[in-house]
Structure formats: structure tokens, C-alpha cells
């Protein structure tokens, strides 16, 4: 059995962490109001699907993707072929932007791009090692797990508290620390 101190950093994992998709790619219903704000007020293109990828079947050559949010969320399935660009970005649990075209009775993906997380203004990203160091040094902070409560219960980061997005929307500052200058770090499920 491999024995390894958890203080060791593993370069490969580090790289992984860097190239890994952001949490926003998993957003569902909860970010609707955010998304509706000016930045994303671009025109809806019916031949573009944006959202988290539900799954990709290489045997059937299809991609299923969830578009829309809340009650309007639905899963769309498109086919792909050897001409489809960026098929590597259609990864389960990660958000993608799929451009498609109608061919006969079928919808075919033509170009797939990753949908990157947009950080709200004034919010900076923190990486895995930096966060680890802050926890290790016991820097005062409130670490918030924004995933649904069940996921938190199954396993969460040390010292993290559970505040799923709907709860924060409802209770606002009531569930956050009183000191508004204290470091506040949010995380979620990254990718699945």
C-alpha cells in the first residue's frame, strides 16, 4: 500500500487542478438570476446549446446536454461524427457550448467548446494548494460548501460549512459571518 503524507503535493494532480473546469459549469437552476443579468443578455441562437453535459456515448455517437434552468431545464441530445470539432470538451459533468445543425431528421454537433466559469467582479479564484495552505496555517476564514446538502454530508473539506445556493439566496447574510471583511471562500463540485 502506498503511504503518502497528505502534505506532499503531486505535480500531476496539481496540473489537473489547474486545467479542471470551474464550478460554474455545474450550475443548475440556482444561477438563473445571475445569468439573466446584462453580461449574458446576448441574443439566443437556436443552433447553440449551452449547459452541463449529461453524458456522451461513443458507441451511439451522441451527446446529451442540459439547457435552460429551473423548471425550464431540459436535456437535449445531439449526434456527433468525425467532423465534429472539439469533441473532447463534451465531458460528463462539465459545461460546454455546442453548435449544431439539422441534417435530415437528425441534429448534429458541429463545433463544441468548453464553457468557462465567469468569476463575478471582485471575486478572485483560489487554487487547491493555496486553499490547503490557508487551512494548514489556520488563517481565519469561512469556507462554504455550495453543493446540495447531501453532497456535503457525504464528504466535505475540513472546517467547511454547508450553504447550498438556494439557502444563501433565501437567508442572505444571516447564514454568513458577521464580519464582512473576513475571508470567505466558496467551493462546489467542480466536475463530476
Amino acid at each position, binding site marked *: *500500500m*502506498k503511504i*503518502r503524507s497528505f502534505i506532499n*503535493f*503531486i505535480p500531476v494532480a496539481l496540473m*489537473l*487542478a*489547474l486545467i*479542471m473546469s*470551474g*464550478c*460554474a459549469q455545474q450550475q*443548475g437552476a*440556482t*444561477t438563473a438570476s*445571475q445569468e439573466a443579468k446584462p453580461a449574458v443578455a446576448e441574443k439566443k441562437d437556436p443552433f447553440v446549446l449551452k449547459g452541463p453535459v449529461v*453524458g456522451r*456515448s461513443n*458507441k*451511439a*455517437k*451522441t451527446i*446529451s446536454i442540459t439547457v435552460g434552468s429551473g423548471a425550464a431545464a431540459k*436535456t437535449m*441530445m445531439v449526434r456527433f461524427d468525425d467532423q465534429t470539432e472539439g469533441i473532447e470538451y463534451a465531458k460528463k459533468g462539465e459545461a460546454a457550448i455546442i453548435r449544431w445543425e439539422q441534417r435530415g431528421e437528425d441534429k448534429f454537433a458541429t463545433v463544441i467548446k468548453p464553457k468557462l*466559469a*465567469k*468569476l*463575478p467582479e*471582485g*471575486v478572485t*479564484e483560489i487554487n*487547491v*494548494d493555496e*486553499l*490547503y495552505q490557508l487551512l494548514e496555517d489556520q488563517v481565519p476564514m469561512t469556507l*462554504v*460548501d*455550495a*453543493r446540495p446538502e447531501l*453532497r*456535503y*454530508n*457525504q*464528504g466535505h473539506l475540513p472546517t467547511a460549512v454547508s*450553504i447550498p*445556493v438556494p439557502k*444563501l439566496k433565501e437567508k*442572505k447574510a444571516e447564514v*454568513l459571518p458577521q464580519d*464582512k471583511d473576513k*475571508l*470567505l*471562500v*466558496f*467551493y*462546489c*463540485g*467542480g*466536475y463530476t
Partner: protein
Amino acid sequence: MSTANAGLAKKLGYTNVRAFLAGEPAWSEEGYPVYASNQFVGKGNIVLIDLRKGDAPVKGRIPRSVQIHYDELENRMDDIPRNAPVVVYSDNMEEAQDAYEDLKDEGFKTVAMVKGNFQGWVASGAEVESGPIFSNEIRWVRKLGKGEVSVAEFRQAIMGELPDTFVVDARTKDEVAELGIFTNTVNIPLDEIPKRMNELPKDKRIFVHCSTGARADLAYRELIGNGFDVKFLLLDISDAECDCPIIIPAKQG
């Protein structure tokens, strides 16, 4: 999700807000510790492993735990159901951490530790069980997820014992030609489902299967979104548990 929360916090006047975008998967990927809530340790559908040695668990243990001393873990790895969430604890932090990492390396997806280890559990005032241990067998049964049909019910359908049910095989034509098809089943490959929905009855329940359940899941989502009463089978159909009769196509030429 973290960006949504971070944006909201910023609006509420918090000045020092950061988002750990890579999230929990990146954290646990590094082998950094992840803890289960005590409530989940107590009630969740988990495999709970007591890593302590000798009669320590007899003197006091977390209810429902199975004793597997850390040195034995490698040998017992195959006894732990692959899909089970696993929670480990010990009285030694390093051992719990090592077991946590070993299980993750072995491919278990949901692995966590008990906060503060056994000592932390006791200190939290949660229930401790003591006395002789009669069995160290791991018992864990997966609960059906959303949209899943049980193997038993699926089997009834392909045996023709569920009159209002229509079974779809979402594998490719080539797979069906090579391996055969279940009785009372219609082959509609996943990629053809959108354009062949008119072949599916709206007044019957639909069960979808494929070879492992991945495509059946996607077919399920496609159909449920189009108003069908549908469930899918999450099972490798070569699994003996299925025990479903197959019609083997006649060899051609």
C-alpha cells in the same frame, strides 16, 4: 454554483470573497482529507470501516461499522461494493488518512473520514456501541437512483409478465446482431431515439436498457423530457443478476 454564491456574497457587502473553482473533486484528488457529516456516518447508506486493531471496537465503536484493521484493508478491498460510499475511522489519524487515500487510489469514488476520528465521534456525543461483534461481513445494498428500474421488475417485463410495459434496447444494431436481444424487447439505438419516438407508446411504461446502463440513462433523459413514462436499467447486462433470456440471431451466410 460557487460563482453564484460568491457573487451574491459580494453583493451583500463582503469584501474578501474568493472562489475555489476546481472544488471538492480537485481537493480529494490531491489526497487531501474529506470528512463526512456525523449524521451521514450514523444514518447514510454507507460502508463504515473501523480500522482499529484487536478488541478496540468491542470496547466501543460507531454503530454499523465493520472492523477491518488497516493491515487487512488491501485484502478486503474486493469485499467492498464498488459503488458504495465508504467512510473510514481509526484512533490514529495517519492510518485513517492512509486508508482514505488507498481507497481513492483503488477507484472508490465517495470516500470520507469521520471528523476527529473515533475520538471526535465520541467527543461529539454521538452514539457508541459496545459488546461482542458477531459478524464482519459487509452488507450494503445500492438504492435505486432516479429513473431506475429494479432488475426484478425489468426481468418481469422482458419475460412478458408486465402487460403495460414496452422494453427498448438502446444498443447499436451491430451489438444486437452479435450478442442477441432480450425477449419482448425492441431495438432502437440511442442515436435514433429522437427521430423514432413515434414508435413508442405513450400509454405504456417504457423500460430502456443498453450494455451497462450509460446509454439507457441518456435515453431515459431524452424520453422523460418528451413526456414518456420511462425507467432505465442501470446494470451490466452480462451480470448474472440479470438472468434474462436472450434471443440469439441466426448466423448469416
